Structure formats: structure tokens, C-alpha cells
């Protein structure tokens, strides 16, 4: 990705407040983003809300990079009404890592984290009600992981619940 450096007062504040935790601050097509260590993700998001008025979580989602050791990328898109601007906060971690929930910072994260768990199988620690939201509760597998082929259904579920041989 052909990124540019993101340098303004906000990125400066992030670097000075989180000297170790902010790994990079860049921008692509004028949209700034910062990458943090997974342990400090919650603290960075809470800091932006409390000290910089990023009081609205537009979206929280994940990207799967199965070839990398740190395969999951968690992306929070924050918006500030006061400054009318968006930033993205990202973090990368391996499958064994369980990130801390941010549903205590933004209530909107409750369902969004459930969706990420449903689709990617990322376990959020401290989430009040972490269970599947779109797929059935007894479905096996996580559809948006890259190793899942689009035709690759949970055939056992289909046979048990729908009484047909295959959904394909």
C-alpha cells in the first residue's frame, strides 16, 4: 500500500501519549490510520474518545491474513462530531490472542464484536454476551476466514436442520 505519513497534532498526541504502543501513523488517499499493539488497542480507543472527542464508533471489523503469524487485523473506525473527522485504529494479533472488548467504551461495539466473533472466531475478553449473531448458534466454522471456501458450508448442520443432503 502506497501510504503517506500522517502528521498533525492528533498523530503527535498519539505518539507522545503511547510511545511504545503506536507502531505507525499513516494515511492512504487522505484517510488517516494508526496501528497499535494489541494490548494497548483498548487504551488508545478510550483515549481518543475521552481526550479527543472521538465519541462515535462508525464501524468495527476484522480482516484475515492467514499467511501471516499475526493473522487477524482488528479495525475500528472512529468519528468525532466536534472535529468532523474520521480515523481508523488497527491492530494485528495471532489466532491465540484474545483482545479486550471495547463494548465498555462504545455500546455499539456489543453487536459488532458479536459479528466479528461469528464471522472470524475472534474471542473478545470481557464481552457481556459473546455469542453468534447472524449464523445459527450450533453452526460450526467461521465463514469469513480465508480458508473457508464460499461453497464450504457446515453440511452436518444442513443435514440435521433442513433434512436435505447438501445445501449446494
Amino acid at each position, binding site marked *: 500500500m*502506497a501510504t503517506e505519513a500522517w502528521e498533525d497534532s492528533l498523530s503527535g498526541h498519539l505518539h507522545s501519549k503511547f510511545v511504545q504502543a503506536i507502531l505507525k501513523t499513516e494515511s*492512504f488517499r487522505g484517510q488517516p490510520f494508526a496501528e497499535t499493539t494489541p494490548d494497548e488497542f483498548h487504551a488508545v480507543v478510550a483515549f481518543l474518545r475521552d481526550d479527543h472527542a472521538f465519541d462515535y464508533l*462508525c*464501524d468495527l471489523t476484522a480482516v484475515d491474513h492467514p499467511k501471516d503469524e499475526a493473522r487477524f487485523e482488528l479495525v475500528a473506525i472512529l468519528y468525532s462530531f466536534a472535529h468532523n473527522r474520521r480515523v481508523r485504529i488497527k491492530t494485528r494479533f495471532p489466532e491465540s490472542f484474545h483482545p479486550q472488548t471495547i463494548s465498555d467504551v462504545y455500546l*455499539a461495539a456489543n453487536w*459488532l464484536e458479536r459479528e466479528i466473533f461469528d*464471522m472470524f472466531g475472534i474471542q473478545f475478553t470481557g464481552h457481556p454476551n459473546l455469542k453468534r449473531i447472524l449464523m445459527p448458534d450450533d453452526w460450526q466454522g467461521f465463514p*469469513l476466514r480465508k480458508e473457508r471456501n464460499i461453497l464450504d458450508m457446515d453440511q452436518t448442520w444442513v443435514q440435521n436442520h433442513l433434512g436435505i443432503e447438501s445445501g449446494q
Partner: protein
Amino acid sequence: MVLNMGPQHPSTHGVLRLVLKLDGERVKAVECVIGYLHRGVEKIGENRTYIQFAPYVDRMDYISAVSNGLGYCLAVEGLIGVEAPPRAQIVRVIFAELNRIASHLLWLGTSALDLGAMTALFYCLREREEVLKIFENYCGARLTTHAFRIGGLQYELHDTFEAETRAFSEMFKKRLDEYDQLLTNNPIWIERLKGVGVLTADECKSWGVSGPMIRAAGLAWDLRKAQPYSGYDQFDFDIPTRQGADSYDRYLVRIDEMRQSLRIIDQAIEKIPTGAIMAKVPKVLKPAPGEVYVSIEAPKGELGYYIVSDGSLHPYRLRVRPPSFINLASLEKMAVGALVADVVAIIGTIDIVLGEVDR
């Protein structure tokens, strides 16, 4: 008592299931069970080319397919660094506003029906039909229009487009006043909606609620003004707001929004520029590696697309930020303490489309 409502219930606007915990008529807790319409839209996106995926977005919020298409086209255009020509931008605005009116009309008709006001449904569908006819004359489809292409418009405008749109605008202004007379001061309507489903501005922010709901809570926030796209900054219009943050104010905001949409349409139809309808876009779309988040003000709130490209023919990750899904989450807060009958009113004024909630 635990009461199961839906998924096959006329007032849930599709296949939404609610598990209500009740104490008499009072709701103690509510849990939404969703996913019945899940089709894996984001997974499909990773398996199609950028152009092939465009028709799929129409099928999320099928009530406002034009807005879905506009958001997707803008997102991909942002990724490849292309801007639609001026003629296409203005025409996009007209279609998006017509679609906003159609979406609000269907919302008004169906949620009035939930509350026992059957007449409104027939009036609203009668007017919505006129909008759908304009869409049909333009592209042959009424709901899943696929009206835009990445880089511009699907088709050149049909000859009667301007006359049809002007006639609709003329007619609809009067009809809106009729709705006002029918509902706005109707004591039953006020009784059912006033003070029901209150969600304050701060709560809206924390829940991520957008669109008419946050404007009914007093926050004049509209992406068409806050971060203008597709030439919205050329038009003179207001952001309707109310202070009550309840279902009744959401109704008033949507009625006012339809008036503002007419204002935009009237201005836009006067200044459609001549010229090309498509920018130069490669036949085979292979965006350079990168990622963008682009969002628009859809009729239901902030509709965003987060697209990650790895330089191949297919999006590496295509995330849709669905306004209905995130707005619906706040039901679990708003319904607590309400009566069972109020839950119907609250679902109605959130304005959800399950095709978009479940994707």
C-alpha cells in the same frame, strides 16, 4: 413471562425475532434474534470482481437500492481515484433523493399500518409508485435498480425524465400536506408515539445510531452536509432536527426530510449539465493495494463501505457498515420499560430493513 415475537410477525417488517421478557404488559428485557436473511454478502464480495459485485448491494437495503449503489460506486471510485463527471453526479443526487422519498414513504405507510392507521399505507404506496415508475422508465427495474456504474451512470437519461420528475415534485408537495393533516395532529397518532422509545443524543452517539434517529435527538448531523459527496455542497437545503428524541419526533424529521429532498430535486433538475455520463474507468478493474472507508447518508443512516484491495481482481475484504443493523441494536435499550404495544411503534420508527441487517 417470556413472549416470542416473530420471526413471522407483520409488525417486525421482515424476519426479525424478538424474545421479550415481560412483567404484565411491561417489557423488562428484550433480545433480538437476527440472521434469518443472512446471505454472506461480504463473503460473496471477496469472490466477485469489483464490477460483478455492484448488483449485489442493491439487495441489501432493497427499499433504497439507489443509495446502496451510490455508496458502493463512490467507495470503489475512491479506491481507484476516479471521480464521476458532473452530469453523472447531479443525476445521482436526483436519483438518491427520489429514493430517499420512496424509502421514507414505505416506512411511513408500513409503520402507520402497524399502529392501526391503514389509510396512510394506501396513500404512501400510491405516491411511491410514481417514483418507482421513474426508476422503471430509466433502467427497467423498480426496486433493485443497479442505476449507477463505477465511474458514472448505467444509462443516459430517458427523454421524459425531467418532465416526470417535475410532475412528481409538483404533485408530491401537496400530498405531503395531506399527510400532515392526516397524521401530525391526529390524537391517536400522537398518543401512540409521543414519549415512546426515547434515545438521547449522547445515547445515540454511544450506540452508533445515525440518520433520522440522531437528528430527532437534536443533533444536526447529516453526511450530505458534514462531508459532502457527489456534489451535495452545490445545493441549498436544511437538516431537519427535533429535540424530543422520541418516536413522534422521528416521524416529524422524516416528513421534513422528504420536503428537503424535494428542494434538492427541484434545484438539481434545473442544472443538469450536459456532457459525458461515464469517467474513464479501465474495463478490467485492478485497484492498487490500499484501503478506503467511504460512507454516505442513506435514508436509514450512515451507510459505509470499507474496502481493502490487495491489487487483484477481487476485493480482499469488503465490509459493509449497515445503518439498520447498528440502529437496531439500540432497541435492546429503548424497549426496556415500554409496553408491548410500544415495542411495535419503536421497531417501526427505527426503520429497519432485514435484508440489510442480516446481509
